[in-house]
């Protein structure tokens, strides 16, 4: 049965009432009305729903809302804004990366986490870190260019 859960999203406290099994993605999109994490597969296979949980990329389609606990949830809109862009956002804009952009959360959030751990990754390290994410529109080359640009910023 539905229960109440407290969530810390982008530094703000929220409460949602939901089935404990409901994935975090639906709490963010449907209950909190956020646009940025997207539904792509619901199977942890594509990354469209990626958020950071305490700084680590997590696929919110496959994290039950009851498992989030006190972890800090950061979404794409939480890493930066038009006024104060994160360097990865700025680099993706500079390279004009997305086509439809339905895949973007995975690439951006995983790149943010990569650059935290490894500020100057090689091409191969970038590919290794981003492997498994999907983009149907074929923007992969511009993604790699953007991550390299962000690393130089």
């Amino acid at each position, binding site marked *: 049965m539905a229960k109440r859960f407290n969530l810390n999203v982008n530094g703000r406290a929220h409460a949602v009432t*939901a*089935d404990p099994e*409901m*994935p975090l993605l*639906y709490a963010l*999109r*449907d209950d909190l*009305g*956020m*646009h*940025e994490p*997207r*539904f*792509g*597969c*619901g*199977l942890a*296979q*594509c990354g*469209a729903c990626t958020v950071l949980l305490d700084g680590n990329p997590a696929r919110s389609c496959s994290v039950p809302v009851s498992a989030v606990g006190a972890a800090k949830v950061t*979404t*794409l*809109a939480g890493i*930066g*804004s*038009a006024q104060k*862009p994160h360097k990865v*956002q700025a680099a*993706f*804009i500079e390279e*004009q*990366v*997305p*086509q*439809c*952009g*339905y*895949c*973007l959360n995975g690439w*951006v959030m995983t790149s943010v986490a990569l650059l935290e751990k490894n500020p100057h990754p090689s*091409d191969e390290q970038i*590919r*290794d870190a*981003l*492997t*498994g*994410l*999907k*983009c*149907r*529109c*074929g*923007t*992969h*080359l*511009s*993604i*790699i260019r953007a991550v390299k640009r962000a690393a130089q910023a």
Partner: protein
Amino acid sequence: MSLQMNRRDFLAGSGTLVVSVMLPGLSAHAATPGTQASRMALKPDQLSSYISVNRDGSVTGWVGKVDMAQGTEIGWIKIIAEELDMPPERVRMVQGNTEETVDQGGASGSTGIWRGGHALRNAAAEARLTLMEMGAAKLGVPIDQLEVNDGVISQRGKPGRKVSYGELIGGRQFDVQLEWNKEYGNDLLVKGRAKPKSPSEYKQIGKPGTRRRDVAEKLYGTATVMADIKVPGMLHGRVLRPPVAGAVPVSVDNTSVKDIPGVRVVWQKNFIGLVAPKQWDAIRAARQLKVVWSAATPPFPEQQDLYKHIAGAKVMKRDEEVNSGDVDAAFAAAARVVEYSYAWPFHSHASLSPACGIADMRADSATVWTGGQKPHHCREGIAIMFNLPEDKVKVIYTPGPGSYGRNDSGDATMDAAVLSKAVGEPVRVQGMRHDGTGWDPKSPASIHRSRAAIDKDGKVLAWHFETKGFSRREFFRDEGSPERTLAGQLMDWPLKPVWLLGVPGESYSFARRKTSDTIGPLLDRASPLRSSHFRDPGGPQIHFASESFMDELALATNTDAVEFRLRYLKEPRDLEVVRTVAEKASWQSHVGARKQMRGEVHTGQGLAYAVRGATRVAVIAEVEVNPKTYRVWVRRYVIAHDCGQVIAPDLLRQTIEAQVVQTTSRAVFEEVKFDQRNVTSVDWLSYPILDIKDAPEAIDITLIDRPEMPPAGAGEATCRVVAAAVANAIFDATAVRLRQVPFTPERLKAAWV
């Protein structure tokens, strides 16, 4: 919700009636804002249907096409800004909404710039001429003494004597008639009295640097796309699909979901779905609902028998193209005949998100939100299905996930409409991954036999190319009629299949006969293998075979592959793309497989060339093949691309780059798997696509700009050369000739020599 101001608000907000431009020869005209809202008033032969000037002097372009996020919008903006001498930042576009734009066919056949841009260019030129005439009257200066800078008309040499577009007509509508060719859709064209600028006058066209409008908001998470739309009172819907394709519901146990709040089951004919107030509850209910399905006979052959099935299947329609040469005589006189066969599997559109559609069906009207690429056709389909006049159906376009022809969007909107009509509330439908990959329209599987007659000197006398496969339009290319959607098919609408696959583009100068035999579907109604358009429909299949064969012919006639093309192509633009790509890739003339090694891996280069409409493209793929793992990696592509006039070079490059990556995915990795019961490719594990580890290191593109020519399509042409170039490169690297897509390690291993 979309930030787009709708046309009604635009007019209402102007605080004026629509007022005519008072010019000699133009009738005075006043209309109430409301009359602009319906299609009847939105006239294709009115300038105001395409261009308007806002009160602040900025310009809005209205287009009945949509940008599938490849920057077409910027192309339109540049075209309009160029003609009007406006900064592009002060031009915005409204795309696709049925109440605000004329039916120009949506995104279709790479015609966004070629056709849509053509109409807008003529309209913008007419708007400029009209504004100049108004400016001349206002300033009392002859028109030939006027100039325009950034939307301000002034007397040459006297910049103080000026009037802006905004002052002349801002907030009011042009009342200027255009000559319209009486066509809708892609074929619509208009022109006015004005002649558009000549390329030598261009300040913006062909120059790089214009930023897309949709990119930054996507990065900041502030964009609203189709999946984000929320309508007050909206319920969440899901549609149930059978375990065996073709099975229909026999009984439904509604009590099986009674523990989930607010679920309502909708069962109409063979359509079965449900709604719930919360999306998660709709998802759970769709999993939990007990449906007994009919015992349908499994409709499909075993996967390994697919090509045998195609070979033996009844031909529904033959298309034939013979050029002037006498093909039969050439084969009769041949010293040698070379013949090979090729095969291409079904591919899934597999848009990144399963399609989302929202419908709010009322007793005598409907509002539908679609992310699909053909909103006007969506309106037609809904109107017919629910017996509504077209002008009572309003379709609002908001961008969906990348769609390249016919993805599952049209099905989602129709599903939403059926559910909304049944429950009397607005309904949003978005399927799960298995609904997307498993049940979306597929690009057709096909087989190809290619033969050539060669004389004793190794000259090619004639070519006979045969294609046989499923239709690329089995249920048409859009959702403009109910039977073209899954819901319509499940609700017994009579089917109207279209039999069409296609033949290679005209290129080579030898005598040739090209036939295309279209076969019927494996299951004629509500099939997960129903086939439709997927980026350059039929092109990748056909040109994989024809351009692989050209390399095989080059080998058979002891000729270098570049030299072979140069020998048999005649048109200067064809020759130029081939020469350019060879030079840029430092092509070394050779015959046959070189089997070069770099460290542990084999390396090779392969060429392919094709024409698509008025666009020419040649590509050289450089591959690495690992002899231990049999992995194929296309490390680099070199491309020469000629699509006539280039509007926005940087965006064009990105469009080409992304289509090359997408088609590499299709050629190397993708194949829809199925068993006798159903499609078994239902997610990203069972339908793998290219991973970033397999992305090329570089795609080097040379654009051959022809400012004196009209711009042709560029969103698809390069799709048709990728697979053959890769196959030809694999051959150069390994001496293994792959004649079947995808080029998986298993296939390469089996063929290894």
